[in-house]
């Protein structure tokens, strides 16, 4: 197998005045060339730290990382020719430049000849439906347009490996879809390209990625294709319960016999409890607990498992819960 990215026991500790944060705690990652590889995890899981190490901006505290066969610590100069990174919500560049000027500027830092660079910028702007904005000032862009421009910045220089750190965060549905579509198209153009993308949207990982690593608290807790990961919760029945708001209920539900895992998210002013039941009889026990809580049931659905369910099963808690912890 041709490996694009590989890490061994990668660890990163941030030291500030009087505390240490272990952001990565022994990560072993292998990404085959040609893949769209997802790193899925809650905020604070260590996704950005991992990306920053892989793109040579940050040194690991220990462990090893190779990108395109090059060591990120020592062979970083050569590596920098071959990679690009785009982060979600970034506000980089210079607001008074025109979009095409800003893109040209960044291409020059890679030594790209101006004419091909401008041609490529034109093509990419066209492809992402930004042609009209080419002469607009960067400061005048909407956040969706800005993020598409940022994506183009990552694509102009034709990297071997493209790193996307939460590329669709805070985008509206349409812009997020455009970004994902472009990633697919770009990958389809050349089977030797690789994308590593972090996200905390499980839908995005599921829909876009060939393989996914689920990370939590600096560790990879599971890895596989989205289908394989969902397979892990296949033996359970997944039931969503929509309840009126109320006091704490999660622990009581988790204690019910036959409830393998449970998580809660807020949705339209209701609490949506996702339960993984190892047998159908467990539902009776769940209902008794709900009645005892005095909350009202606004909806019950049985549904197919998602990556979020896989996360809950593996970690024991939902992503939102992990973020608050």
């Amino acid at each position, binding site marked *: 197998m041709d490996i694009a990215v590989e890490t061994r026991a990668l660890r990163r500790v*941030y030291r500030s005045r009087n505390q240490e944060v272990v952001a990565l705690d022994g990560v072993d990652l292998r990404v085959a060339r040609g893949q769209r590889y997802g790193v899925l995890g809650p*905020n*604070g899981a260590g996704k*950005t730290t991992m990306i*920053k190490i892989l*793109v*040579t*901006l*940050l*040194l690991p505290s220990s462990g090893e990382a190779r990108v395109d066969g090059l060591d990120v610590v020592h062979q970083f*100069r050569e590596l*920098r*020719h*071959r*990679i690009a*990174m785009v*982060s979600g*919500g*970034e*506000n*980089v*560049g*210079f607001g*008074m*430049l025109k979009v095409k*000027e800003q893109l*040209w*500027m*960044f291409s*020059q*830092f*890679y*030594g*790209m*000849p101006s004419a091909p660079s401008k041609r490529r910028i034109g093509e990419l702007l066209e492809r992402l439906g930004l042609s009209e904005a080419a002469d607009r000032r960067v400061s005048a862009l909407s956040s969706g347009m800005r993020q598409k421009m940022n994506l183009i910045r990552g694509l102009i220089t034709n990297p071997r490996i493209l790193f996307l750190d939460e590329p669709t965060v805070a985008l509206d549905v349409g812009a997020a879809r455009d970004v994902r579509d472009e990633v697919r198209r770009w990958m389809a153009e050349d089977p030797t390209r690789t994308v590593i993308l972090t996200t905390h949207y499980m839908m995005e990982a599921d829909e876009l990625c060939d393989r996914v690593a689920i990370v939590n608290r600096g560790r990879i807790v599971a890895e596989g294709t989205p289908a394989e990961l969902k397979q892990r919760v296949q033996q359970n029945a997944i039931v969503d319960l929509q309840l009126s708001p109320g006091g704490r209920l999660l622990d009581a539900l988790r204690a019910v016999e036959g409830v393998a895992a449970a998580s809660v998210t807020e949705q339209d002013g209701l609490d949506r409890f996702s339960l993984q039941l190892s047998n159908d009889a467990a539902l009776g026990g769940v209902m008794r607990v709900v009645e005892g809580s005095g909350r009202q049931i606004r909806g019950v659905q049985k549904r197919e498992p998602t990556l979020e369910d896989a996360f809950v099963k593996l970690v024991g808690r939902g992503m939102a819960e992990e973020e608050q912890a």
Partner: protein
Amino acid sequence: MSHPSAMRIFLKTIVARAYPRFVAAYRNRAWLITETLLPLVGTIAMIYVYRALHAPARFLGFVVLGGVLLAFWQNVIWAMATQFFWDRGAGNLELFAMAPTSLAAILLGMALGGAYVSLTRAATILLVASVLFGVSYSLSGLLPALGVFVLTISALYCLGMLLASLFLFYQREAWQLADAMQEPIYFLSGFYFPVRSLGAVVGGVGSLIPLTLGLDAIRQLILPGTPQFIPLSVEVLAVVAQIIAYAALSQISLRYLERQARQDARLILRST
């Protein structure tokens, strides 16, 4: 895999990083007003101090030439040395750093882009103040003075790169320090009086700033009657030595501090 040569990337980076500066100066011309008027007002204030003292005309020339070089000093400090602080905040620094270019080229690009504004500012001071207050210069020294000027500015930009790498490391504190050091530097460089008046010790310390000797040399060349601090030829040699020393030091420290910054997460903007 083949990719563009380091030299090519270096040159292209300089041009590309200078570009937004040109554009900023051009698209925001109102800015040019403060950028040129503010130093002009400062220069004029100092000229009136000499006027009030009934100083000989060449002293007004000292102030004008000081104001001219001051424009470049400010460019180096504010448009170059402290710039990584802002770039980091905007998230630009990490994109500069992860590109296969050098931070030195980025810095030179910034300085070059800013030099346009500095030149305008310097020219305004030179013309307006000289005409307004009737300062005249010796034409015979003009060409060599121009040569010394170019050397001085080169040394200054090399020092700027050295400072930038330090600022990258100390960040906010360094920025405040630069702000606080303005007047002390004006004092030490003899922007407003002949460097000789500082005496050997203070003048010697001040000479670490390339402006001090360069300015004195230029004054000696085009303002006859300038009290000699040290002989002209020594000053020119010292400036050349400073170019070499500061260039070498800045390269070493940029490399060292970039590595240090990768270690301490100083290149990246913390988002969470």
